């Protein structure tokens, strides 16, 4: 059996990219995509560790996460479209009405 460290490293790198995308980018679409990257980074870790331990639970969880991610993407994009129709922008620094 192969050591999962390389996969976990990949997972960590992907997660880091996702985090940076969420925190640093202004475009809401890119932010959503970065969230997807973070979710998939977790998927990689799940499957790698599951396969290493010979446990199928890791794979099942990956399916679970994909389902949730699909639903989230659908809702998120719908919201984005609604926001764009209203504000004609999807720059998240512009969408800061919900504050003090």
């Amino acid at each position: 059996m192969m050591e999962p460290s390389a996969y976990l490293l990949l997972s960590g790198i992907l997660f880091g990219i996702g985090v940076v995308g969420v925190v640093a980018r202004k475009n809401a679409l890119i932010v959503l995509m970065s969230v997807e990257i973070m979710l998939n980074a977790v998927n990689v870790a799940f499957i790698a560790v599951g396969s290493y331990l010979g446990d199928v639970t890791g794979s099942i969880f990956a399916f679970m996460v994909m389902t949730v991610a699909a639903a989230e993407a659908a809702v998120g994009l719908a919201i984005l479209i609604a926001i764009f129709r209203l504000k004609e922008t999807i720059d998240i620094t512009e969408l800061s009405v919900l504050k003090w």
Partner: protein
Amino acid sequence: MVGEILDYLWLVPALPLLGVIVNSGIALFAERPLLLAEDARRPTDSPGDDHGHGHGASHAAPPYRKLVAVLGPAVVGASFVVSLLAVLALAARPPHERLFVQVLFPWVQAGTFSAPAAFQLDPLSSVMILVVTGVGFLIHVYSVGYMSHERAFARYFVYLNLFTFAMLLLVLGSNFLLMFVGWEGVGLCSYLLIGYWYEKKSAADAGKKAFVVNRVGDFGFLVAMFLIFWTFGSVEYTEVFARIPGLAASGVLTTGIATAITLLLFVGAVGKSAQIPLYVWLPDAMEGPTPVSALIHAATMVTAGVYMVARTNALYLLAPTSMMVVAVVGAATAIFSATIGITQNDIKRVLAYSTVSQLGYMFLACGVGAFTAGIFHLMTHAFFKALLFLGSGSVIHALAGEQDMRKMGSLKNHLPVTFVTMFIATLAISGIPGLSGFFSKDEILWKSFSSGHGHAGLWLVGTAAAGITAFYMFRLVFLTFFGNSRMDPEVEKHVHESPYSMTVPLMILAVLAVAGGWVGIPHVLGGHNYFEEWLAPVFAHGAAGAAHGEAHASAALEYLLMATSVGVALCGIGLAWYLYRVRPSKPKEIADRVPGLYGVVLNKYYVDEIYDVAIVRKIVNGSIWLWEAFDATFIDGIVNGVAALVQKAGDRARRVQTGVVGNYALSLLLGAVILVGFLIWP
């Protein structure tokens, strides 16, 4: 059978309480809406309505009034019957077994402290409940007639029944705590009834004054109660008094502690019983309806202090200093207020100062160890002073509210029953032999001279006060009932004798004012002092001390003192006759000759003004300072400061919420990093 009646002792206070409940239901749900509706209608009514209102004849009485008029007196009457049966059952027992305690339920239980709700019937409390329910019943009946023109009829009887209930608690309670509850209850009712006509500012003020002055005394009573519990470990009468000999022998109960307890108790008594220096509220209390003055401010509540001192006689006898203080304060009050009584022109105020003076006599008796004589005078005073007040009420009623004696005169033909009964009471209070006041007052004077605690000076002051009493009481009678009419012609047309509901109680009280003293005829007059014998079990400790002093006093001396006091009283009456019947212009001349002295006495020695400057103003100014400087600046400053601080901090803190999603995501990340950091920390 005997036991059975005593088992119903709880009915004595419970019956007036029933009256309170039913009457307050009527007052709240029947009378109040009616009066409010009437008030709401008034401004739109024709102005002529005011005339009809005075005599209340124009519109039919609401139906509930009849119920109140029957129920109010009936519950007190029933209570009197139960009291009488219970006392008779008690009297059937041998003297040393005349103590019955009925425990109803455990009331206050905290650690070692316990006070049950229990009633104690012994010779002392039996005298008190008979006076309270008996005289109380007559005054309730009288009130039905006297208050018949009042709008708030049910409210009046709620207060009056509540008073009777509280007073019975006070005298029947088997511990100091229950006595205190009754003590405060009668204080509350006194406040409510003095301020019965609360639309009148002077009445509302008088009620407030009575309440505030009584607080001073209540403080003393409370502290004394704490000391009693601290010393004896109980507030139950039977336990406290039973422990006195043991604790005194073991040195726990020193004379110092006994003096402290008794002096503090006496502070309470001074407040409630209107003695120097706290008597100032009682004359003002005359703002209340006259039957209230008779019941609360003459016959019952104001004697609560005397009852309390007599109840704790075993403690007082351990503290000679306290006894002396009680006697001196009593004697001083007796003569001080008697002199004020000479100059007053308001018929009720004369009687008020007379009451203060007679209460002084009772304390004088207690102070010289003659507790029996004090309670005896309490009883006879309840009869003749209630009669005097009710008689003055009848006069005021007949004159449509006139209280100034200068506008009365020649009323004896118009008000024959009132005149005869009031004249009898006047003879009684003056100490004319054969009437009740003679026996009780004479016993006090004799004891103040002969008892081991007595002193010739006390006797002298008491005798002088007796002469003054006879003088001002006959002045009152002469000014009111004799001479030429000085009434307003308008008032004179309507003068009428009072209805039977008022005159019958007067007649019964007149019989009592004559015969009430016959239970305590002294031995030297060939009588048998049943009263002293009856109370002997309660005052067993004191009897030894008093008898010790009497041993060297002879019967001849007693005759001499008796003759002296009667002679002084007759001189007082004669002087009053000369000044107000033979030479009616003389009093004015005398007053003009010493305008300074007359002014001082007329203005009640300016005691109210002195208190106002020395105490009331200072407290008011201090309160204003506390309000403006302390409360408004300091306390409010703290409260507002805290609020401002929180507001400022919140104003800063809200900037964190930028509304930019990225910032939130960053803080999420930071939080996650910190959490993970904690988790994987070695």
